[in-house]
């Protein structure tokens, strides 16, 4: 029996390997310029009703989501793209309204605002940041988050910078839900999140400098209402000079001093949209939260800034290292 013990150990190991849950992060051989997508858990079958997909404009952030949706929905998906002419958009809206499709996916703010005029359609909006300003959410209109998974974002940040204890987020008004979830996720990872609400880019800059001595880093959210080109550069420059870690919303900002770029995944967005569609199918209202959070966070890590801060990237995150 003792002579068979190693074989038993080996067999058990093999069995354990087979039963080990697949990580949520897809291992990529070489980190590329574009963040690598993440494989999600097995998903349910898509709903059977036809779905109208309304796309705001022809940008990759919208097109990729639309393509992912179309891939999943197949023939059930009918895609429209907003035009330059308001008259054409009205006609397009009329067509959607007349159609049998009871569910509409609005990708982008313009599409969501257009779809807002549809009274008896269920609308799931995505890729919309300032849903609050536009009073988008209603019983028949709910969305999927634009920001990546807070839990995974903070987990990665904490893993890279274990000493991180306090960070700040400065946004415009109306993002309470986002902030609430972010604070929860931060707390779960041992990070205190300070939130400041401002009304302009200059105010953001002032607040940014004012709370610098209270935090160790910032998460720069893509709130266009309080960001300008100059201020973005200014805050990143200030952060570099004052030794603050900054998580940014776009890979390009790593060049200006961001330490980590965390972005959402288009397929994750699409999957969450489809999940909401199937949950809402046949119902009078759309169940669930106003904004469904995402499950995935795409990472890219600035090697130079990491070195500057004297940090060591754990092995599981090293594949996301990239010197801009």
């Amino acid at each position, binding site marked *: 029996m003792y002579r068979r013990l190693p074989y038993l150990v080996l067999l058990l190991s093999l069995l354990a390997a087979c039963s080990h849950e697949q990580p949520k992060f897809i291992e990529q051989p070489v980190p590329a310029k574009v963040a690598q997508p993440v494989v999600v858990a097995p998903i349910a079958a898509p709903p059977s009703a036809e779905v109208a997909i309304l796309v705001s404009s022809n940008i990759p952030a919208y097109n990729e989501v639309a393509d992912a949706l179309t891939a999943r929905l197949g023939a059930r998906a009918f895609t429209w793209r907003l035009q330059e002419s308001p008259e054409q958009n009205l006609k397009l809206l009329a067509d959607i309204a007349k159609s049998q499709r009871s569910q509409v996916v609005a990708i982008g703010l313009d599409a969501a605002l257009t779809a807002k005029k549809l009274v008896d359609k269920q609308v799931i909006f995505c890729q919309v940041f*300032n849903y609050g300003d536009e009073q988008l959410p209603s019983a028949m209109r709910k969305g999927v988050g634009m920001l990546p998974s807070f839990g995974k974002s903070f987990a990665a940040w904490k893993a890279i910078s274990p000493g991180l204890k306090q960070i700040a987020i400065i946004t415009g008004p109306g993002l309470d839900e986002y902030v609430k979830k972010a604070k929860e996720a931060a707390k779960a990872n041992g990070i205190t999140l300070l939130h400041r609400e401002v009304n*302009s880019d200059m*105010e953001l800059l002032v607040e940014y400098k004012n709370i610098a001595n209270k935090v160790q880093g910032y998460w720069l959210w*893509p709130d266009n209402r*309080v*960001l300008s080109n100059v201020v973005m550069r200014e805050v990143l420059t200030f952060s570099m000079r004052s030794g603050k870690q900054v998580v940014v919303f776009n890979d390009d900002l790593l060049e200006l001093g961001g330490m980590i770029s965390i972005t959402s995944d288009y397929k994750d967005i699409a999957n969450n949209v489809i999940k909401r569609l199937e949950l809402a199918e046949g119902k009078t209202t759309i169940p669930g939260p106003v904004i469904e959070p995402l499950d995935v966070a795409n990472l890219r890590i600035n090697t130079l800034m990491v070195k500057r801060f004297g940090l060591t990237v754990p092995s599981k995150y090293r594949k996301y290292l990239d010197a801009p």
Partner: protein
Amino acid sequence: MHHKIGLYGKRFITGFIGFTSQLRMKGAEVAQNAEKISNKGPRSLANRMLLLQFFWAVAVYILVIAAMWYAASSVIESSLRNQAEGWVGKLDEIGIPYYVSSSRAKVKEGFNDLRNFQEVVGVRYLDANGKDVVVEYNRRGEDKTGFLKIDTDARKKISAELAAQGRPILYEKGDDDRIRVLAPLMVKSIASDGLLNFSLDSTIREKKEIIGYISIILDYGFATRQLHDSLLYASAIIAVLMVLAAFVGRVMIRWALQPLSRLEEPLSRLANGEIDVTVESTGDHEIVQIGRALNTTIGALRERDEALRRLANHDALTGLCNRSYFSELLEKEIRRIGEAGGSSALFFFDLDRFKHINDTYGHAAGDRLLVQIAEVLRKRLREDDVLARFGGDEFVALVRNVNRKRAQEIGAELVNKMQEFTFYEGVDAIKIQFSVGITIITDGRATPHHYLKQADMAVHEAKAQGRNRYFMYEPDISATEGDYDSGWYERLKEAIQQEMFRFYYQPLVGLKGQQNNLFEVLLRLPDTRHGVIVPGGFFPALERFGLMAEMDRYVLRKAFQVLEGVKDENYVLSVNCSGHIFDDFEFTALVGQLLAEHAVKPQQLILEVSEQTAVRHLERLKPVVQRLTSLGVNFAIDDFGAGFASFSYIKQFPVQCLKIHGTLIERIALDMVDRITVTSIVTMAKELGIETVAKFVPNEETLSLLREIGVDYAQGDYLGEPNPDLKVQRPRLSVVK
């Protein structure tokens, strides 16, 4: 701002142009006055160059300083603008918290920093309407700056430029070297929701909102004052350098022009008539060329001067001294004797029978004889002695440093020499003799005329004693009556100057019905003993004493006066001229002058020259005759036909009349040869368009014959004797057809 700067620039340029114009006029005025005052003649080239250099340097200096001033002012303004932009950015950061947050304490901190910058006079943060002051800063001591509210136009302008520029900035220039900078305070936001299309490489569309204004007043007076001081120092240094450069330039220009300056002295001397000048022709190429050219010219002038001197002082035929030059040399010798003592001798030579040879063999032969005689005398005399031809057949010699005895020996030698001399003409061998008068020069106080008179008296005595001899002057020589009178020169001189000569008029009668009244002017010298002396009695003396030219001019002036007094264009006077009109440059001019001064037609004057004189001085006569006939005056050859004359020389110049020699007319009725001669003369003259006059017509028979031959005029005592009253003269009625 830019408009005001351009306006100031235009004003400056206009003022500068006006200033330089005034300066130029003033400079010209000063130069004129200086020239008048200095009376030093033309400016020197070096000074002119220096003056031009100086004015040019001053003009450049003014332009440079003006340019520096303008450029520096522009630099200051430009620098201030750049500073202003920086200040706007800085103050924007300081003031923004006041607008966007409650962190207003930091604004005050920022203002404290401003106190370190003296150029910031005041800062005001205004509300979004630009009316109310939100917060302000003033430099110590400054309460008001004069710029407060932002007017509507400024706000509109800022708003309009907001889209085009990142941050529009307005500049307003005020008093006391201050500018106000006005800029908006803005907040921006990116237009794209969620920044989903964000990229560093692309332009992000932003919305802009003005939340207030910032007004900064900057004082650049300090910088301006520093600039002015620096420019003044620089100007002073440049001025000193320019003066130094002018001084050095002056020295260098003078040094460079030195070769030209050295030409000044010889050229001045040349301009004053000195031709004994040599110009330096070394050094620079141009100076060498100029020097050589000048020296060549000076050499040519010397030669010409020498030639003219020779012409003026020497006889053209023999090359001996002429009367005037000899007189000069004689005077010098007399003075020398007076100073140094000693004695010299004056010889007067008169050829015997020279007129006969002239008449027999012709004037050319006579000239050749004179040349040979001159050569004989020249060979015998020493280099130091002076030999002259006094005209005609008279020679004079000054033999220096000889006493009476030696002079007599020389005289005897010369007489013997002449006795040995033979003149060959054709196949004839002619012996020539002369009479020599000698006087010794001892008295330094006497005049040349005194000794010439003595020598002349001596030669007359030699002639009187039989010729072919010499005679030494003795004080007790008595003058030969009729040939010489004591004081003859003075008498003739006085007669000319006092116009004592009487003018007689002998008519020339027209044989072809001519309407004009033609008279020949004949002179008479009043004499207490003889009543009047005819020309033969005083003409030789006039010739001898060099008074013929003066006589010619006197007779000419008188003739014009007479013709003008007659007031009748039909009256024509024929005036005899000596050979001296060829040498007298004033004679032609005098004729022209008299024609202009008197109401006399040039056709009323005929100038007569003897054939002998004309032939002897043919080449010199031609231009004179041409000049005079060009004035309209007529010319006549007197005593034509007596010698070996031909018409060949007549063709060479315009002659209007030939007066046939009296010897051919007197016996024309009896002498066939004379008749043939006269006929041929008249015929040839007619062919050439020349009128003829027959002189010494004795009777009616001769007159008729002359008329048949075709002579134009006749003259003679038979037709009318010379009479002092011109109007009284009327030709014999019987001869008027």
